[in-house]
């Protein structure tokens, strides 16, 4: 312990100047190694030194720990008196105290030279502050000058005085500046950094589903509060409350750190998490109820427990380092080990001071703890974030490629399907045409062939047969037209075609065609069957009934259930025995394919062929 304290002073102030007699002036920097200590009540700020009896107190070695052995430490000032030899005027001397706590006031020969902070509440908390008090060498005019340094004894602090050096200001200024930077500025920087990281990772924790960011944000936040006392001089709350808050935040910082470590290891378990949080919670409640002044002796053991938790986690990090990606692993483990070392060192020092094992000047590493922790863990988490981000980006690239590929496949299969459908449609249409030609024109031609071969038919009969064949072929061709689905339109075409023929035979063609409801489910084939029925009925009438008038009528039944198409003539009617020979059976077959009905009424006053088609079936 003594060794480390020695190393610490070496670190802080460089080579320690040689101790010399207390009667020297300030020409050479000299450590004032001993002083007499007098305790006097604190009456005012600044307090006045007890000039009457400065030498009555006991002689003590400097640096000196004043606080912990005093029965009542409140409202008392510890006065250290130094005897200093004469000095020629014309120089600027300075008194440099390497670190002092909490505040200090300096008198030379009874006159005030400087003060570190206030003595009345709320007092300052700058317990690690280096101070430099320059003064004119002319003040050291007497053969023996009395330098008095007063420290308020405050219950919440160790009330120590570090090395006291007297020398020329120009010699001491650089030492002071270096100590100020290391002890104060770095600490301030780490606190500011913690606030920044708290905000940054806090925001990240809200938008990223990784709990590590949340725990790190809490680490930064708690650490920021726990180190507030480094540079918040005069908080508007009592010393004890402030002290309590800062100390409790050490516990919470350790707790969050442990949880962060477990999260990084992927070892987060309720069974671990709850005891950790319960520990910090119980300590907080107990300390708050007891009050900072009464709980103070327990802070050291509590800190030891708190620091042991992340220490164990660091051990885990080391044991299970394979779980962590390589770049992050190095940062986590090296930072973790550094922090564990610092924590153990600081707690040991604090314990040593309490127990009196350690005396004199010691170094508190806590401010550097924060800096290392925030930079190290923050960096590791940032690396983690980048890794995840890069992974997500790669996944995005992969996904978009996959989507493009799938889309290409889909388009290809769609094109192929469309092509197949088209081919199928063409094949179906071709099949239909072949069937139609076979049933229609084919039949007519075969019949004509028989007539020619039997040599029984007259040229007129042959012409009629050929016209029938042509008529049927026209129907087939018209069924290919864009407007083929429109029955009235096709009927109109039929009429235009047949009319000259009827007129040349002196037959009057009556046209009573009404609009029909759209039968959207009727295909070209069905429409063609309708047209064939109508056409055959008309040609049958022309050929066999010798009518004077043929009427074509279309309409919708009264109940709207079916449409009808009617061919009526006023001819001689059909001989019942000749019915089938006239192709009436054919008409029925066609009507069946339409799921429709056909009625043929024939008498001496004419024939009516009516085709009925159910609207519901085809609409």
């Amino acid at each position, binding site marked *: 312990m003594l060794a480390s304290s020695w190393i610490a002073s070496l670190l802080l102030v460089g080579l320690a100047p040689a101790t010399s007699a207390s009667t020297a002036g300030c020409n050479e920097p000299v450590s004032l190694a001993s002083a007499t200590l007098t305790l006097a009540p604190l009456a005012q700020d600044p307090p006045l030194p007890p000039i009457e009896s400065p030498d009555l107190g006991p002689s003590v070695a400097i640096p000196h720990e004043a606080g912990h052995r005093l029965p009542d430490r409140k409202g008392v000032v510890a006065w250290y008196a130094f005897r200093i030899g004469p000095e020629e005027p014309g120089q600027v001397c300075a008194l440099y105290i390497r670190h002092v706590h909490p505040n200090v006031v300096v008198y030379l020969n009874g006159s005030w030279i400087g003060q570190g902070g206030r003595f009345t509440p709320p007092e300052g908390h700058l317990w690690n502050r280096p101070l430099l008090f320059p003064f004119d060498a002319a003040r050291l005019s007497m053969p023996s000058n009395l330098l008095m340094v007063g420290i308020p004894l405050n219950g919440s602090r160790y009330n120590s005085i570090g090395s006291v050096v007297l020398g020329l200001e120009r010699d001491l200024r650089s030492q002071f500046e270096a100590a100020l930077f290391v002890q104060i500025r770095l600490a301030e920087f780490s606190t500011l950094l913690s606030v920044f990281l708290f905000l940054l990772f806090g925001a990240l924790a809200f938008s990223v589903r990784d709990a590590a960011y949340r725990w790190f944000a809490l680490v930064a936040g708690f650490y920021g509060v726990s180190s507030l006392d480094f540079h918040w001089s005069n908080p508007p709350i009592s010393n004890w409350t402030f002290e309590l808050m800062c100390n409790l935040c050490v516990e919470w910082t350790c707790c969050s750190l442990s949880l962060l470590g477990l999260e990084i290891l992927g070892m987060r378990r309720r069974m671990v998490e709850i005891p950790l949080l319960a520990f910090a919670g119980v300590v907080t409640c107990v300390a708050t109820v007891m009050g900072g002044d009464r709980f103070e002796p327990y802070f050291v053991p509590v800190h030891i427990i708190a620091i042991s938790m992340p220490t164990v986690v660091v051990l885990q990090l080391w044991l299970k380092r394979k779980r962590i990606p390589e770049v992050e692993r190095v940062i986590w483990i090296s930072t973790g080990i550094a922090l564990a070392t610092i924590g153990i060192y600081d707690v040991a020092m604090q314990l040593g001071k309490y127990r009196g094992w350690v005396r004199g000047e010691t170094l508190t590493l806590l401010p550097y703890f924060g800096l290392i922790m925030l930079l190290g863990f923050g960096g590791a988490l940032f690396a983690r974030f980048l890794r995840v981000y890069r992974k997500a980006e790669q996944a995005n690239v992969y996904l978009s490629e996959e989507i493009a590929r799938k889309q290409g496949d889909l388009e290809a299969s769609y094109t192929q399907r469309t092509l197949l459908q088209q081919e199928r449609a063409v094949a179906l249409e071709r099949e239909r045409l072949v069937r139609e030609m076979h049933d229609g024109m084919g039949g007519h031609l075969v019949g004509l062939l028989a007539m020619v071969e039997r040599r029984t038919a007259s040229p007129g009969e042959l012409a009629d047969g050929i016209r029938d064949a042509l008529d049927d072929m026209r129907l087939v061709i*018209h069924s290919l037209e864009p407007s083929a689905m429109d029955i009235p339109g096709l009927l109109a075409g039929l009429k235009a075609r047949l009319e000259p023929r009827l007129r040349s035979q002196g037959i009057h063609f009556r*046209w009573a065609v009404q609009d029909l409801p759209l039968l959207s489910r009727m295909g070209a084939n069905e429409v063609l069957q309708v047209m064939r029925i109508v056409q055959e009925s008309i040609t049958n009438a022309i050929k066999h009934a010798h009518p004077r008038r043929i009427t074509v009528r279309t309409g919708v039944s009264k109940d709207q259930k079916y449409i009808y198409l009617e061919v009526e003539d006023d001819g001689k009617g059909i001989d019942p025995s000749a019915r089938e020979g006239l192709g009436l059976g054919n008409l029925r077959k066609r009507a069946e394919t339409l799921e429709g009905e056909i009625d043929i009424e024939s008498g001496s006053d004419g024939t009516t062929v009516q085709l009925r088609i159910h609207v519901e079936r085809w609409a």
Partner: protein
Amino acid sequence: MSGKVHGVLVIEDDELTRERFMGAIEGSGRLELHGAVGTCAEARRVMAERVPDVILTDLGLPDGHGIDLIREVRQDHPEVQILVISVFGDERTVIASVEAGANGYLLKDGTAEQIATSLLDLIEGGSPMSPPIARYILKLVQARVAPTGSELEKDLKPDGKSPSLSKREIEVLELLAKGFSAAEIAELLNLSPHTIVAHCRSIHRKLDVSSRSSAIFEAAQLGLIRIHD
């Protein structure tokens, strides 16, 4: 009807068919054979000498397409009646012919008597418009009134004088498209057949020209309908 005798030029490469038409024309007192040729070149030569009243042409000719010939004749002689000889009278052939400037079509397989009757009907307006042609004009008119907001309307609106058919005229067109003859329409609408024929003429006139085919041609030119869609 008037006693005028119409000179007919037959353009048909199939000899037998040509002779059937020649026979039908010569057998009718009201028609006179102006000439009968089998190629476009011969037809042009005959027309260069004297222009016939009526041209009866096949579409598939050995030295060219009948459609081109129709377009040519229509441009030089708007007053000539042009009829197309068709086996099937199918929509595609009829509309393509009408677009080129034909006035109507005639089926190939009619008897001599039927051919002569049809010819006279077409020439003198007894059967004012065959259903496919009526349907085609109707489509043009509907395309024009339909609020499509297309190029069509833009084309029509600026001059403000685009002809619109009356309700009655559209009614007549619709009935023609359904296959009713002038006489039947007259009966249905309680009008005289002459009025129906007059309506037909009015429809042609409103489409801004004297000849019915160029009316259609013009409508197509105006962008009233996209013929080659």
